[in-house]
Each structure stands twice: as C-alpha cells, then as structure tokens.
C-alpha cells in the first residue's frame, strides 16, 4: 500500500466530513472515517492506517479507552494516534500524551492547516 492512510474517528458526522475534506487537501492522504471506538478497532486492524485521528468524547468507548484497546492488539499497537479534542487544557494534554498519544489537536481547528498539522506528527518522534 502506498500513500499516507489516515483513519478519522468521530461520532459527529458533520465533523467527520469537514475533517475528511480538510485532510483531502493533502493529495498524498487517503482518508477513511468511522463513528465509534469499536469500529475504529476493527478498521485499524484491517486497514493498518499510518495514523489515527481520534475524537476524545464519544459515547460507549471514548478516545482514551479506544487508544488503550488499540495498544492491546499487536496489529494496532504501533499506530500513532493523535487526539482531536475540544478539551485542550494543558493538564489534559499531558494526560493524553502520558496515555501514549502522539499529539493533541484542538477543536475547532483551522481546516486549511489541519493536514499540515497531522503531517507534522508523522515525522516527529514521540514526545515524552
């Protein structure tokens, strides 16, 4: 498989679509989206995305729980995860990073620069 595969996980269909168009501005990205943590686990294992953009507040399985489950499966354990969240207080960012997230992007985001922000997490080493 060539190109950069991004899996978008968000329970809001409108946000999924806006994120899809925003990331689509980068021609090298192939984007797939799903609406729940459970779907994300299945798609991540089947599709092996290069990076997962994960919403934090979702019903049933929230972002941190989804991340924990991704880490448990050897097939998805190594995939970098970036949270896309409305909660961007410093203490919470630290908390997400300590859970093993590659980074945190805040909502609302700038749609014209979102792809570049995601790209920056593909090359930079994990921040501790």
């Amino acid at each position, binding site marked *: 498989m060539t190109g950069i595969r991004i899996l978008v996980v968000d329970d*809001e269909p*409108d*946000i999924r679509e*806006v*994120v899809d*168009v*925003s990331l689509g*501005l980068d021609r090298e990205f192939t984007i797939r989206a799903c609406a729940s943590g459970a779907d994300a686990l299945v798609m991540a294992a089947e599709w092996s995305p290069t990076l997962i953009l994960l919403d934090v*507040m979702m019903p049933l399985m929230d972002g941190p729980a989804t991340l924990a489950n991704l880490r448990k499966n050897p097939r998805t354990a190594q995939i970098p995860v970036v949270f896309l969240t*409305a*909660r961007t*207080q*410093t*203490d919470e960012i630290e908390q997400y990073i300590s859970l093993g997230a590659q980074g945190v992007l805040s*909502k*609302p*985001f*700038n*749609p*014209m620069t979102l792809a570049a922000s995601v790209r920056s997490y593909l090359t930079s080493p994990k921040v501790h």
Partner: protein
Amino acid sequence: MTGSTRIKAILLIEDNPGDARLIREMLDEQGSHTTKLTLVDCMRAAEGHLVAHPVDIILLDPGLPDAQGLSAIRRVHAAAPRVPLVVVTGYDDELLAEQALQEGAQDYLVKGQIERRSLLRALRYATERKRLEQLKDEFVSTVSHELRTPLTSITGSLGLLMGNAAGNLPPPMARLLAIAHTNSQRLVRLVNDILDIEKMEAGRVVFNFSRVEVRPLVAQAIEAMRGFAEGYGVRVRLEDARTATDVRADPDRLLQVVTNLLSNAIKFSSANDEVLVAIEKGTDMVRLTVRDHGSGIPVDFKPLVFEKFAQADAGAARQKGGTGLGLSIVKQIVDRLGGEAGFADAPGGGTIFHVQLPCWDHVASLAIDRDAKPDAARLLLCEDDLDTALTLREQLRQVGFATDFGYSAGDAFTRATATKYHGILVDIHLPDGDGVSLIVRLRELPQYRETPIVVVSGDTSRGRDDLRSSKLNVLDWLNKPVDFDRLARLLAKPAAREANRRPRILHVDENDAVARALSAIGDVVTVNSIAEARHALKTSDFDLAVLDVAHAKGASPDLLPELRDSKGNAVPVVVFSADGATLADDPQEQAALARSHTSIDSLVATVSDRLASRKTSASSEVI
C-alpha cells in the same frame, strides 16, 4: 428545596471560647442529634481537620492567632473550595464581610447580632447557595463543550469555503461568507473566554511558574496580533527597554494577558492611531503598560472595567468583536500571578492599562530563609507556587525550622548540592520536570541517601503507589493542603519515624507472585538483575533481601559483601528457590542466609520472622 438541606458536620473555626460556646448552645437548642459540631481554635488545626474529615459547612471567625482577615478566608477557601463558608465578623467590619463574599464565602454573620434563627438560616442559605454555584459552574462548562461541537463544523466548513477548497467563489458570495466566517470565529473566542473564566474561578487552572523574559514575550504577542491590528489600521510599537526585565510568571498565561490588553487597545483605537507598549523595572516589580489613543473610559464605567461582560458602550464594543471578558481574564490571571492590574487616563486622551508582576530577582531573593534563628535546622522546599511556599515557611518556622525554596526541579537540585539540608519537601508537579525524577537525582547524592524526603502534592493519587514501593525511600506523601501537624512530626523525630516505618525488602527475582506476597509485609523493590540490585543498594537501604536461587547461585559471592546498610551492617538475606531446586551449600553464606524452597507462604513466613527478629535485636541494643 431548602428544607431538604441537611447539615451533618459543621466545622467552627473560632479562637474565642465564649463566642464558640454561644454558637454551640444555639445549635444544640435545635435539638438535632444528627448535627456534629467540631471546634478548632487556629488555622493550622482547621486545615488539618479539613484534610482528614468531610465537612458540610464551615463557620469562620477570621481573627485567629495564626491567620487574620482576608488571608484567613483565602486559606479556608483554598483548603476546602467545595465546602460552603460562613464568615463571622466584628460589628464594625462590613468591609471585610463584603470582601469575604468576593473571596468565595457564601454569607456572613455579625458578632453580637447572631441569634439562633438567623444562624440556622445562614447555614441553610449558604449550603444552598454553594450548591447552586457549583451547578452553575458545571452548567457553563457543559454548555461550552456542547457549543464547540457545532462550532467545529461551522468554522471548519466556512474556513474551507473561504480557503477556496471548494473552488473559487464569486465576489458577492465571498463577502457574505467572510461575514459568517468572522462571526463564527468570534463565537469560538467567546466560548473559549467563558471556559477560561469559569476554570479560573473554580480554581482549576494550573499555573506553571518559571523565569520569563518579558520583552521577547511581549514582542511575540505584538507579532501575533499584527494582522489583527492591521485590520483596524492601528500600529503597535514597543518602546526600547534597556534593563533586564525578568519576572516570575506562567509564560502561556502572561502571553494571554498581553494579548488581551493589546486586543483591547487596538479595538478602541481609531485608524492610523498608535498603541504604545512599554516595560519598566521597579525595585520588586516589573511594570508593563499599554497605551491607546482612544476616547478614554467614561467616569461611571471605571469601576466596572474588570467586571465580566462589562462594556462601556455595549453596541460599539460588540461591533468591534469584543466578548466583554478579555479584561476580566487579565485581572484574574494577574491576581494569580501575584501581580496587580490597573488603568489610568492617559495625558492627552486615551487610556493606559498597566500590569505589575514580581521581579525574578525579588522572588529569587526570597528563596533563602534569612529570618530564621541561626541554629534552626534547614529544610529545602521544592515548590513552584510562591504563596504556598511562603505559608509553609511561616508554619515551619513556628516549630523551629528554616525553609529555603527551590522554585523548580533544577533550582532545587542546585540548592541541594550547595547546602546540606536536614529534610526535603518536594511538590510532585513542577514546571521543569516531575518531582519523582528530582528525588531520584537527590538520592544518588551520597549526602542525601538518608535525608527525610516528603512528597507534597496537589494531585491526590497519581504516582503515589509507585513512589511508596519504589527504591526512593520517600518518607510520606501529603496532599495539599498540607496536614501540617503530620509534616512536623515526620520531620522532627527520626527515631519515632524509624520505629513505625514498613520494612524495606529488596527482591531479586522475576516472579510477580512472590513480589505481591512480600508486599503484604513490607515495601518491596523488585529488580531483575544483579546489576539493578547493586544500583538499588547504592541509592537506598534495605532491611532484608530476598534472592531467587537462580540469581543467588551465580551472583551471591559478588552481591553478598555489598548487602550492607549505610552503617556498614550486613543486610539479612533469604535465599528462595521457586522451583524447589537444591540450594548451594556454601558455609560462607550460612550466617547470613535463611532458606525456603517449599512455597510462597512459607517464604513470607520466613521473611516475617527474620524482620521481627531484626526489630527485637535492634531495640534490645538500644536498651
């Protein structure tokens, strides 16, 4: 709703026995057996009580031997931010009563005018009011988060259209979309500001203090606001500052202060005006001023400038895209930074806003306790919040300690290497790293291997268990607000401390089940290799070592001579064979070894016996 408010535990903080008795009698008359009144006569005791016991309401006389006035009110509020507070003031102290309400008290009573009915009403009313305040805070927080979801879709879609992501737009359509886009962004700012205010008022904003150079930070804010200023046709100029102007602040929050002040000045300037920013250094403070050439602040609006949603000319301000919260946020942040914010009419028209912040040099000079008695035992407190540090220093002085401060992990480490401290208190959350790694580094220094180290944390649980059973030999873990009596006891009596502490066991093995079983009888440090064991022995003392036979066989000749505590006494060793293998029969080891190769239970029993005999022999030596 009010009738259902049940008050079970009342904490009365009052040093006058007569006044205390009066209140107790009034409450007793109520004939309620379910209400429990606890009386304490000083702030230290109050803070200690609040750490350990749930309280439904607090009655405070703010004239205490160890805390007076507003500072007493603030300390109680800090110790129990979620507990309703009623202040009891003198009859001539209406001003304090009003300030008390601003500082988070729900109601006040005036001494000499209290009677049973009004006391009970005040207690119920305060409880209900506090509950409503909390509901409001939660409501604001929820609503703000709920607003962000649709706003994300709206600003995102509009941003894509404006960026021509869906093709080029015909000019009239572009103009209308620009209006929608600008306003959606304004709504985002408003939601952010509301959340900021709410978090700040609820005391949930964490400030990370460090040394901040003001000038580059201001230059950065001006650069970031350039586009905004150009939109208004306004120039922003930073006056040359020649002297170094470092302050102690949270750089992110200070940037927010400067940005808000600039945004305010730009919005109230006319096209082609200049906004002038200056930085001056005083003795203890650095002063930042932002001058605009606008129409000035109307006299009757002056008292409201820093209030929430206050706008002198609401219509005009809304036109300018303001939220009415910017200056209120400035004031709240500056207060928390230990500074002062204000404004004045500028000569020749316009307004000068100023912010004063503590000079780094001044704060740094406070780090050494110069007022303590010369023979006082010296402690090092690693804490980034100056107010907390000063309060603890004051309390520790009363029991005979001198307290120096380290404002960051690096700062504390430097200080610890320059002076030998009797004890070290470490706040686990530090701006330049965590307290745990500081403790690791300190324990590696020979002079601090045995020094009492106490962790002080605002975070109730994180890392606590890790530290307890780690090889760092941390004396205790205290949550903020600090239970001061406990702290004083910990630092004062090394002998008593020694008698009560849990035994420390070094476990050289990879077997989790053994480690779990051993942790029932002591603090266990498990290492997987002889190299790690050697390192653990260098950084901490152990009462006993448990060696798996696989490791013990090959390594015991190397390791045994090193199994000594800091006084050079041999550490008893229990050699354990998890798989029932026959143990080596080396006569040299006999004296130090006890053996078990049956089960984990019998291992634990053997270890227990060994530890018990160690205690007895130690105490008989003392006698």
